[in-house]
């Protein structure tokens, strides 16, 4: 991939600074933490850095919150794309299109194979962590099948694609609208054969690395959530936390402009993900003073009710290390009910973990 090179000039920086402010004042879009459509919250890999020949498990957490109740979701997993040129994920699309046509072109429930798996997440499993999984064997020659680089570590990369559809998936012809990346050769249709959009259909990809030197990466674990300092119980039993609602509607919160705070009078709660200081050294990564850098870890919060601010917090910095304050503030929704809160922790080397907790709003 190439692009015009230019030295980030002063005018661009000016635009960036003022633009950040202007956009922050512009009402419009829902926050990333608000779950009100079909969303994929996490795709975990048990071996983000795999050993060639190992079987790696991928686990997907998806939730549907478009309507009053969740819909079931058809899920597909597609693997088998190794070391595409330039590590560009979209160079796998041609291969994907052929796989999808051969496996799903005839309609019906697709059979599973080495590089393909069809799955289904029921409405009851919506939002449940790791409701769908896929196993992939990393080839023995994942590293050695590509040329050794002039500099840097010798590694291989395996891409895995997945999709969740609140309808029926069907393959399409690979086509390009003129951009560098072609359209993904899969679509989701409803019972009437009409295409469903992104509120009911999510496509994604992830990757697993394998290094010649055998380095590994363990995903950072998340052990739970606390609400105002108290641990939130797992499950929806009688002991789930109960909080008062906040009367401001979702629409009023979304359209609030600069200087307005429609939830100023509401009770807000402090959420905290329980994450230990687990950041590992990042091999070969050194700071300017020769300091060994650690992997960066951050946590993202989601909820299908209320508002979270901020949605994302740093847990461990590459140079500064563990940042103990990664709490967020949750404002309950206006409608009573039982809502989910998720926290996903990630490192920048592909490791991740997810936890789901419930809260009752009265």
């Amino acid at each position, binding site marked *: 991939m*190439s692009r*015009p*090179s*230019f*030295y*980030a*000039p*002063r*005018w*661009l*920086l*000016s635009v960036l*600074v*003022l633009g*950040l402010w*202007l*956009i922050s004042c512009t009402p*419009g879009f*829902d*926050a*990333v933490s608000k779950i009100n459509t079909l969303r994929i919250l*996490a*795709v975990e890999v048990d071996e983000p*850095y795999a050993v060639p020949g190992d079987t790696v498990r991928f686990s997907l957490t998806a939730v549907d919150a478009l309507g009053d109740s969740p819909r079931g979701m058809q899920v597909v997993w597609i693997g088998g794309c190794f070391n595409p*040129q*330039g*590590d*560009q994920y979209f160079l796998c699309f041609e291969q994907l299109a052929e796989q999808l046509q051969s496996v799903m072109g005839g309609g019906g429930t697709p059979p599973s194979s080495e590089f393909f798996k069809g799955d289904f997440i029921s409405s009851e499993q919506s939002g449940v962590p790791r409701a769908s999984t896929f196993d992939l064997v990393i080839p023995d020659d994942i590293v050695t099948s590509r040329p050794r680089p002039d*500099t*840097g570590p010798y590694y291989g990369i395996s891409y895995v694609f997945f999709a969740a559809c609140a309808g029926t998936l069907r393959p399409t012809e690979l086509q390009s609208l*003129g*951009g560098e990346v072609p*359209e993904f050769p899969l679509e989701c249709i409803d019972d009437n054969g009409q*295409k*469903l959009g*992104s*509120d009911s259909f999510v496509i*994604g*990809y*992830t*990757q697993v*690395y394998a290094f010649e030197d055998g*380095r590994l*990466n363990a995903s950072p674990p998340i052990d739970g959530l606390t609400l105002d300092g108290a641990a939130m119980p797992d499950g929806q039993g009688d002991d789930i936390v109960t909080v008062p609602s906040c009367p401001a509607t979702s629409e009023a919160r979304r359209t609030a402009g*600069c200087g307005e705070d429609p939830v100023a009078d509401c009770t807000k709660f402090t959420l905290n993900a329980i994450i230990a200081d687990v950041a590992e050294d990042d091999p070969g*990564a050194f*700071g*300017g*003073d020769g300091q060994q850098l650690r992997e*960066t870890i*951050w946590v993202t919060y989601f909820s299908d009710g209320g508002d979270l601010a*901020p949605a*994302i*917090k740093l847990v461990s910095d*590459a140079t500064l290390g563990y940042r103990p304050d990664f709490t967020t503030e949750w404002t309950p929704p206006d409608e009573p009910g039982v809502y989910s809160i998720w926290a996903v922790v*990630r490192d*920048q*080397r*592909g490791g*991740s973990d997810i936890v789901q907790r419930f809260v009752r709003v009265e």
Partner: protein
Amino acid sequence: MASLLGRKVSASALALLAATLPFGAAWAQDDGPKFDGKGRQIKGEEAPPSQRKVVLPVVKTYAAPAYPPDAKKKKIEGEVILKLTIDANGLVEKAVVDQGAGHGFDEAALAAAPKLIFEPARFEDTGQPFKATIRFKYEFKLDAVEPPDETPKPEVGTYRGQLVDASISEPLAGIRMVLRLPDGTERETYTDENGDFNFGELPPGKYALSVQAEGFDPLAATEEVTVGEELAVTYRISPEAVAGIIDVVVEGERPPREVTRRTLEQREIARIPGTNGDALRSLQSLPGVARPPAIAGVLLVRGSAPQDTLTFVDGINVPLIYHFGGLSSVLPTEVLEKIDFYPGNFSARYGRAQGGIVDVAVRSPKKEYSGLAQVDLIDARVLFEGPIPWTDKEWTFSVSGRRSYLDAWLGPVLEAAGTEVAQAPRYYDYQAAIERSWDTGKFRASFYGSDDRLELVVGEPGPGEPALAGNIGLITIFQRGQLGYEHDITPDDRVEVQLAFAHDQLSFGLSNLFFNLDSYQFLGRAEYTRKLGALATLNMGIDMQAGEASVAARLPALPRPGQPDNGPFSTRQLITADVVAGVYRPAAYVEAEITPLSRWRLVPGIRLDYAKDTTQLTASPRFNTRFDIMEGFPRTTVKGGAGVFQQPPQFAQSVPPFGDPNIRGNYAVHYSVGVEQEITRQLEVSLEGFYKQLESQPISQVSTSGASNTIANTGLGYVGGAELLVKYKPDDHFFGWIAYTLSRSVRRNAPDEPEYLVSFDQPHILTVLGSYRFDSGWEIGGRFRFVSGNLADPIVCDAGKSDCDPTRINALYNGVGGYTPIALGGLNNERLPPFNAFDVRVDKKWQFELWALSAYLDVQNAYNNQNTEAIAYNFSFTGRTPVTGIPILPSIGLRGEF
């Protein structure tokens, strides 16, 4: 040597209507207010309080006096000053001798005076004629007649022209024109009733003309007389009250005379709506200049990137032209003498730029004490200048400064919006200079600079960026200590030297990321101009840039192997750099000005540039020409040029770890051809076509392994288009123009890759502006702009378009929690809606005896059009919304000056 004496009254004893000004003035008769020679009312005890400017009487029919025979016989010369009372019809009602000369001269003058017919004096605001008394001089001189010379006469040329009052575009009569000949002697003549003058036959050579007309700015010009050719020029001088002219030269070469320039007078620049009276912002209303993004203070010239156009102050490069957000330029209008703007095909004098050049000349301080203070909603400024005491006005000085108010009101606004502000946006600039000028040159020492700062405190990380919380700051500073020296050593030799010590600082901080560039450089240029006979002039110069730049930075690196490239930007491994690099970029050039005919000018030149950082020596041959198909009025000129314009890489492109040491410079080949046509004295039309071929453009490329980034000179492209300017030059009431640019700016990243339009491509740029000054002192103007919309890389289609598929999957969820967008088509393939806006400006000036007060209201985007500047997307690229630009923005200002 024997000589014969001849009578000369018709040529040398000219009517000196305007020459009465040195003697004091014209004033109205007792039945009306009195005025001085500058049109200012002379207040007496009984004078009414009103202040009205007048237009002085102008000779329509000249009557030459008879030379007294006795005086002629006795070889006596003399001057007679008459006091003439001219009625409202322009007839001489009364003539009395104010300063006699005897010998029959007084009688001869009194006899001739009643035959003079004038254009009567008029009030400037109403045009109403009135009776006035003026002083009028008759000069009686005897010509020295050489005896017949048997030796062959030298070959000669002629020199004639016209002198015009630039403020009203009317000819000036009776003005003394002094010409210094190559041998050091002087010859003088006076303009006639049509403003015409004629020095007659002259040997070939370089002549220095000077005009000192009371009430007007002095004029000095150097002209070349060529054997067998008639040199015909028009000079425009401005009344002192109009405070000089700002020239904006939009031609491709450096024209030597006013006849080849299009000028924007200060009245125009100060009154262009939507600019707050900022001279450099007025450039954005000229053809070839694109509309910049809403809050970006950049100059986009003929489809080139902002960094491709360089800005100079008296020939010394400065890193920016506008303060933060483009609100105003870094030099206030009041200190400018002129702006030379070269959108392309510029002289070999300039280099290191493949786009355009803006060279701002700072004016000389005045020899009388004067000053001004101005306040508006954006900033406040002061200026004070005058002669340095005890130097007999040989040395002058000026000091000025400006500071913005933005931090006073924008800070609270930002805080009310929930943004913690550490330093609200503010800028200031300052200028100080001392100067000594003499007949053949001047020396100036100056110090000037600019300082912009902004810092916001972001309490929460941005969406998807966990490590971006903290401060966002931007600081831009530059300073120049500059010495300038210009000297006409002989009529054929001239040197011009500019030396500067320069400090530039750019600091940008975002959370724990920062980029600090600090450079100290020596900038200098020297040019030697040598006249080579009658047909050619040679310009030779050097242009030096040397110094040291240090970069301290902590920035995200490209993802390393094992790090998905779609993760948060702020969690990438950081590159920390502390680099000091030398800058050494000398250049030399030579350029000839060849005039085989008086109407034809050819300017070939070549420039050599060396850049130590790339170890690259480049040559830039250039050629420009102009040809007057029709000389005089109405002038028709065709012009054209071609040349190579080399540009070294930006510092950050060539210096590791951010840059690639293997990068080379890039360059453009400019071609242009055009025509200029005068329609009336006020109306001029010009049309110019241009084409730029861009070569070796730097392109960032990800290595095949995806693990590293290189910059290679594989890019290329072109910009083509045409510019039309229909301009009505300022008269008593109106000025305005229509500027239209048609262009297309295309790039490709490599020869085998597809073409795409650059993001600042604007095919249609139309500016229509005009300003009308009423007799009452009010002035109202408007500017309408219609510009093609910005280009965008769409990801989400526009739901309002029929071909939009709302179910399209616009992005892929990636394993690190973000969304990777899938562009909807190629680069820059969506044109946003056209920009249009109307700006209004209202001015009012009150003139008092010792000072003047003016006020203005300048309203940008008066009908509050919601122009789309960009598209914003939500986090998952499922929705889009337009980002609109500046809404209606009024500004008011007050200004006092003396």
